[in-house]
């Protein structure tokens, strides 16, 4: 025995020396690799799980490599070497797949928890990944030991393919969810607008969908894949919230004929003194709604009629010169119109009668006020709703509330001041003379003022 050892010590010492060398190299390499600045600079959140997962197995794999090299430079017979290769391969496969299972489990839990997936959902995905790695590992081991694996692989591939096809949308959404959370592109609390039209504050992002609160206060569920495939404008974090939301109303109107008509200036004055406020309101405001698309037309029907039907352009101009915006209630406006006419005819009587068919017909405006689906809690929501609401709604808050309902100031300014302490912007809006804009122009002017504030 001793003789044999003396004669063959090199065949034993060499593999041992190789094994020991690999052990030392592995310790040195692990120190270098796992403490290097290069790895520490990786900004991916998942890298810590990979490093933790392979720190210990790395030594095992290096030792198995050392055994493999040692066996191959040893004097073992070929059959022995082959057996050793299979054992080493099996051990390496088991270790590698074990690492895959533990690392993937940690990564899955990390990301799905970020996506607020249910515990049941997380555990299903973890179990699926475990089974997948175990099956793959068994297949590799069987292959190492020479067992036929092709039929098994084909069966598994078919099952996987069918599963993927059946759940392709869900899979797409899950991957999109990973993409959204990994890149921190959007997060709960952000105000987003998709190119497909949906917009609102993100409530949360699950592993299959994102939920947003729309401007109509509905919760919209959008598949994650749709979010990633759309152009998304992210306006960022919410702005200061109002104590009470601004509830948008709209107002529709119906024209009621009074049957009262005037053929001359005296009859016009008589009518002005007796008709209800709703008639004065109609004749000083209907042009805003009917012709708002063409020109800002700060005239009133009394001015138009005295000019066109009574051929008195001076009186017409004087009536057109009445600034409706100065008045905060209709009766004051009525008195002013009457005063202008009476003052004029006291110095220059208007004797002309309107031709038959061109009489002035007093019409009453019947307003029907109704809520819309929109309410705003902050300036971002407010401005986005302003873009969407009908011109009737804008009209109601800027004209009707101020004068007809006798508030004296438009609704927007009141809310901005009382609920958001936005005094500057409230004042800016209340200083806009709405009668000098088309309704579309007025909408743009208010939007610009608010956008300037929230930029």
């Amino acid at each position, binding site marked *: 025995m001793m003789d044999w050892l003396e004669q063959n010590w090199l065949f034993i010492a060499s593999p041992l020396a190789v094994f020991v060398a690999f052990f030392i190299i592995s310790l040195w390499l692990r120190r270098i690799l796992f403490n290097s600045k290069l790895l520490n600079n990786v900004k991916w959140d998942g890298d810590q799980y990979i490093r933790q997962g392979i720190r210990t197995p790395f030594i095992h794999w290096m030792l198995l490599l050392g055994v493999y090299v040692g066996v191959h430079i040893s004097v073992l017979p070929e059959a022995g070497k082959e057996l050793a290769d299979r054992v080493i391969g099996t051990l390496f496969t088991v270790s590698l797949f074990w690492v895959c299972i533990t690392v993937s489990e940690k990564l899955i839990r990390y990301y799905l928890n970020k996506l607020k997936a249910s515990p049941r959902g997380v555990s299903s995905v973890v179990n699926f990944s475990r089974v997948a790695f175990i099956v793959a590992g068994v297949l590799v081991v069987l292959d190492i030991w020479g067992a036929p694996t092709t039929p098994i692989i084909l069966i598994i591939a078919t099952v996987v393919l069918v599963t993927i096809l059946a759940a392709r949308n869900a899979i797409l959404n899950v991957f999109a969810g990973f993409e959204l959370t990994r890149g921190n592109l959007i997060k709960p609390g952000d105000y987003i607008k998709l190119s497909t039209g949906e917009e609102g504050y993100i409530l949360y992002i699950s592993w299959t969908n994102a939920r947003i609160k729309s401007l109509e206060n509905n919760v919209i569920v959008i598949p994650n894949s749709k979010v990633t495939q759309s152009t998304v404008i992210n306006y960022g974090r919410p702005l200061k919230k109002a104590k009470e939301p601004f509830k948008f109303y709209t107002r529709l109107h*119906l*024209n*009621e*004929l009074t*049957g009262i008509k005037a053929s001359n200036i005296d009859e016009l004055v008589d009518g002005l003194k007796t008709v209800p406020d*709703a008639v004065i309101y109609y004749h000083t405001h209907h042009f805003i709604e009917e012709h708002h698309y063409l020109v800002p037309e700060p005239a009133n029907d009394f001015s138009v009629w005295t000019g066109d039907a009574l051929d008195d352009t001076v009186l017409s101009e004087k009536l057109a010169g009445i600034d409706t915006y100065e008045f905060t209630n209709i009766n004051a406006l009525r008195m002013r119109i009457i005063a202008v006419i009476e003052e004029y005819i006291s110095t220059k009587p208007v004797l002309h009668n309107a031709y038959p*068919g061109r009489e002035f017909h007093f019409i009453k405006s*019947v*307003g029907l006020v*109704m809520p819309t689906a929109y309410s705003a809690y902050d300036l971002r929501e407010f401005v986005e709703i302003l873009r969407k609401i009908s011109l009737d709604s804008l009209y109601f808050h800027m004209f009707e509330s101020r004068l007809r309902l006798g508030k004296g100031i438009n609704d927007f300014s009141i809310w901005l001041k009382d609920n958001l302490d936005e005094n500057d912007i409230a004042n800016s809006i209340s200083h806009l003379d709405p009668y000098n804009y088309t309704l579309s122009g007025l909408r743009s002017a208010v939007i610009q003022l608010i956008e300037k504030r929230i930029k």
Partner: protein
Amino acid sequence: MDINPVKKYAVKIEDYEAIVGKSTIDELRFVADKLKNKIMQNVNSTFSGGGVAEILDHMIPLLNQLGLDARWDVIRGNAEFFEVTKKFHNALHGNDAAISITPEDYSIFNETSRKNIDELNLKGDIFLIHDPQPIALIAKKKEVGGSWIWRCHIDVSNPDRAVWGYLRKYILQYNAAVFSAPNFAQQLPIRQFMISPSIDPVSEKNREISQEIINSVLEKYQLNTDKPIILQVSRFDYLKDPVGVIKAFNIVKKSYDCQLVLAGGTATDDPESTEVIKTTREFADGIPDVHILEIPPKSDIEINALQRAATIVMQKSIKEGFGLTISEALWKSKPVVASAVGGIPLQIKNKLTGLLCHSIEGAAVAVKQLLGNPDYASWLGNNGKEHVRQNFLITRHVKDYLLLCLAIKNAKDVIYL
């Protein structure tokens, strides 16, 4: 090419979103919701021909889509009855025909009305009775209940007092009356509302059509594609003054080489139209480039094509309820020359959305002005289209009817829904 497709396009309320905006349609839905399942019974005198039938044909399906139970029925009457109601129609317009209304005519009207009262099975929450022909149905008010509204589509700004007095006893029994223009308002103890009629932008008559279809219609009626077309579309009726249009054309023709097209059909409740066509043809005899086209019923796409092919559209009416053909032309961005009568000034804001005239000579001057200034004509046409979009589309009309149903039971000036 099939220019008269048999299959009628099934219009949905959503189809209008692209034209008037989603918020407008949302508002319609909100208002309609307040009237959900209410029965709105409409009654007039014909299912086809004329503006009333056309509006109801398009409006009823929309009201039903919005959740109301809108219904439409017509009264029955023989030729004698419709001759009498035509006389009423003319008399309400202030025409001399009223002189010829005899006691026997009133008897015929009463007799047919009584039959209709007995035969028509009416049921509803709101009854809209259109024009004078079915006005006597108000006798059923006590029996069936509901709110009754008389919807007058006629220019009654200067009615024959005898006929108006006769009809007034019926009108007073209604809860409200609806007129198309402010100057049609009367001294009445019941509430009166102003609701303008409308056009349907997605109907066969108003939807976009291809140049190929337009060309095929021009070819069918042998119209010269090289000459500007001056078009008047209207029923053949003396009140539309087709002879006056030809006279104006004769003046224009001295300065511009153009052609005149008078296109129109007849309505089952208008026995006078055949005579008007004959008179017009006799007057036009020997005048080159005048085309008098009798367009058969249900030829909306042909009317559409003619309006789109026109250079200028005229409506030289002597009296006019509203004149929806003007809105149709404006919707196609056509410059319009029209008489300042009835509801026309609501559509034509002079020199802003078209040109108003008061005489044959005035009409001729306006047409020449537009033929000589195509940019100005185009500007007027584009303004006109927007004016119609805002004020004379069927969505606004539906909205007004819905609001009327809500306002009829509430006399306040501001109503909170």
